[in-house]
């Protein structure tokens, strides 16, 4: 019998971001090169490690650990293999053992502990790396005890609003109805955020575990994951994971041999940004226009189909298993003031090292942008950073000392939101960014309340007049008045927070409005498809 070459395990991410820069071609090239040199390859399509500037990041399992190479192009693969890729050989693209890189070791990865490490749809990988520990412990506890643990952890909703999760859970638990729902808001429409997508593509069982713990805690029997249609890979991965989890008895009737019955399904959105607002999402789940509901009644009491409903964001629900597995105290020990635990910061836009940094609250904005992010991709100075999505403020580098803390950001007229950080260099025209905030609101407003529906269109017009030099003082006063009306008079955060980026641009970059940097500007018209919905 001839000796058989043992196979080598190679990881090439199957995450959408990695695939957008050629990971599929790299994976094929690795298999071809393995065949060429007679080396059997066990190829795993993992999630991404979150070091997106290194994608496609190829990792090879060696006795020293998983050695990474990146960014790899398909054309590099033959050269890499000849340099000893399969045994972790030297090459200019070798970045070393990924788990030992300071960028990685200095993070506090709780939610993202398995993302990029495991095969996303392998139940064995999930269990080997601590999966179900949280759910098993929760099922040994009473619902009241689980809710108490959540309250003690200090976890606040990661979707942006930062509402204490324990209070919401307690409200749903306190309702007597037999039919309750757990709904996961995976309508991650904010620019600069991609962590929901990455965790759903990279560790889907984690979300299932978190939702099942929630179902046990609040007494729900049915759950929905509402995923935006722009995320087809996340939809496919979550659906496959639900099927596998149900087959293993982690979902369905009698979860893990207990009396808990919980069924879960994925719903796909319709390309409406507003459905990321929780009441609008519930309307959409009911098969209606995604129009915002007035609160009260709150969804916890009168939610989906009028039943008590727990609505939490993906990152809130995926924080739950770690809290239950290791106890509230461990989670609570991280963070500062009333911002406890970790936040998954997402570095995007014009940034050299973009990706995911999961850190305890209290890290400064400057550390994220300069230390982790390495400044701009273009190499030019940073001029502004938008934190917390399209409805978040633009922050100048002079405020980089701000700590990531809900209250500290709010006090300075900004918001942490969901931790998205979008970097702009010094070529940015901040009047154009302010105009875009209004334009985006006009395109995506659900139309229910006037300040948002009409105010946003008027906002675009007023900014255009200011930039054109028409009665700037009067029009600036008008814009300020409009911002106040939108802030105070809108039903939800869409109209209520659109003034935040506008006002921050005016505060920190007033010159851009009065001495336009690029003139004449050719405004981009709304596309016809968008326009028909906003009249």
């Amino acid at each position: 019998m001839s000796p058989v070459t043992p196979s080598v395990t190679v990881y090439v991410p199957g995450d959408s971001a990695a695939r957008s820069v050629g990971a599929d071609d790299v994976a094929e090239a690795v298999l071809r090169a393995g065949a060429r040199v007679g080396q059997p390859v066990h190829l795993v399509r993992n999630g991404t490690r979150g070091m997106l500037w290194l994608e496609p990041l190829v990792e090879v399992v060696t006795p020293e650990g998983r050695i990474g190479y990146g960014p790899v192009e398909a054309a590099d693969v033959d050269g890499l293999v000849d340099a000893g890729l399969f045994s972790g050989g030297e090459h200019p693209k070798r970045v070393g053992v990924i788990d030992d890189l300071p960028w990685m070791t200095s993070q506090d990865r709780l939610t993202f502990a398995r993302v990029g490490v495991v095969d996303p749809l392998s139940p064995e990988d999930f269990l080997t790396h601590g999966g179900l520990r949280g759910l098993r412990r929760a099922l040994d506890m009473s619902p009241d005890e689980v809710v108490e643990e959540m309250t003690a952890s200090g976890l606040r909703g990661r979707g942006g609003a930062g509402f204490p999760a324990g209070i919401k859970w307690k409200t749903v638990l306190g309702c007597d109805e037999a039919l309750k729902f757990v709904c996961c808001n995976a309508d991650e429409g904010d620019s600069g955020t991609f962590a929901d997508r990455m965790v759903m593509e990279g560790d889907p069982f984690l979300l299932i575990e978190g939702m099942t713990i929630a179902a046990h805690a609040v007494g729900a029997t049915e759950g929905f994951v509402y995923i935006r249609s722009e995320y087809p890979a996340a939809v496919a991965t979550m659906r496959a994971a639900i099927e596998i989890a149900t087959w293993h008895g982690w979902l369905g009737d009698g979860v893990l041999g207990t009396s808990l019955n919980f069924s879960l399904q994925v719903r796909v959105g319709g390309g409406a940004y507003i459905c990321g607002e929780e009441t609008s999402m519930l309307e959409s789940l009911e098969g209606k226009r995604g129009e915002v509901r007035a609160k009260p009644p709150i969804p916890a009491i009168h939610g989906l189909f009028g039943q008590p409903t727990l609505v939490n964001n993906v990152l809130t629900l995926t924080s739950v298993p770690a809290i239950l597995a290791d106890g509230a105290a461990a989670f609570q020990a991280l963070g500062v003031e009333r911002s406890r635990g970790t936040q998954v910061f997402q570095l995007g836009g014009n940034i050299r090292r973009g990706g995911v940094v999961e850190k305890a609250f209290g890290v400064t904005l400057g550390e994220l942008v300069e230390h982790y992010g390495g400044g701009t991709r273009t190499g030019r100075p940073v001029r502004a950073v938008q934190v917390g999505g399209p409805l978040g403020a633009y922050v100048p580098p002079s405020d980089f000392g701000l700590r990531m803390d809900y209250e500290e950001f709010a006090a300075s007229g900004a918001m942490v939101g969901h931790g998205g950080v979008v970097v702009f260099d010094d070529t940015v025209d901040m009047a154009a960014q302010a105009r875009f905030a209004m334009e985006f609101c006009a395109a995506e407003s659900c139309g229910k309340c006037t300040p948002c529906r009409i105010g946003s269109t008027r906002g675009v017009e007023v900014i255009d007049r200011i930039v054109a030099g028409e009665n700037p003082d009067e029009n600036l006063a008008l814009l300020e008045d409009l911002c106040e009306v939108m802030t105070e008079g809108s039903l939800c955060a869409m109209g209520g927070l659109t003034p935040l980026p506008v006002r921050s641009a005016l505060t920190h970059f007033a010159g851009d409005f009065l001495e336009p940097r690029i003139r004449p500007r050719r405004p981009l018209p709304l596309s016809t498809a968008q326009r028909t919905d906003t009249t």
Partner: protein
Amino acid sequence: MTTTEPQPGRTVTEVVTDTVAALEGQRGALLPILHAIQETLGCVPREAVPVLAERLNLSRADVHGVVSFYHDFRAEPAGRTTVKICRAEACQAVGSSRLVEHVRDRYGMELGETRSDGALTVDQVFCLGNCALGPTVQVGARLHGRVDAAKLTQLIDSAMAS
């Protein structure tokens, strides 16, 4: 993405009726039904609305209201090649507006337009979740990161040629 032509022998009414029958058991089934119809027909044609209303015991206005609320549902099929350019902030920060101008200059198309021969639809999208590797463009079902004007031309031309 090439859109599916209505299958020969199946009218819009038949497609709608079959889709409703398959999915109406779900709670709040209208969105899944509309997605399934669009998957089959490439759009949600106007004549589907009264059929849906009747089958689901809703008013025509209600169904029309839902279909027209969501950007995803089209009244007519998209072009054989569809291109979506992300115009959200993270992609703006790395020059997505240049891609919009490029499409205007080279292909003579504005966002939201379908070419008269049905070969190409160009649309805007606000965020594809690829914010660290922008500008991002989706051609058909496929996502592309770090796209510049030259790459966009190559992506569009090769998609249209295939």
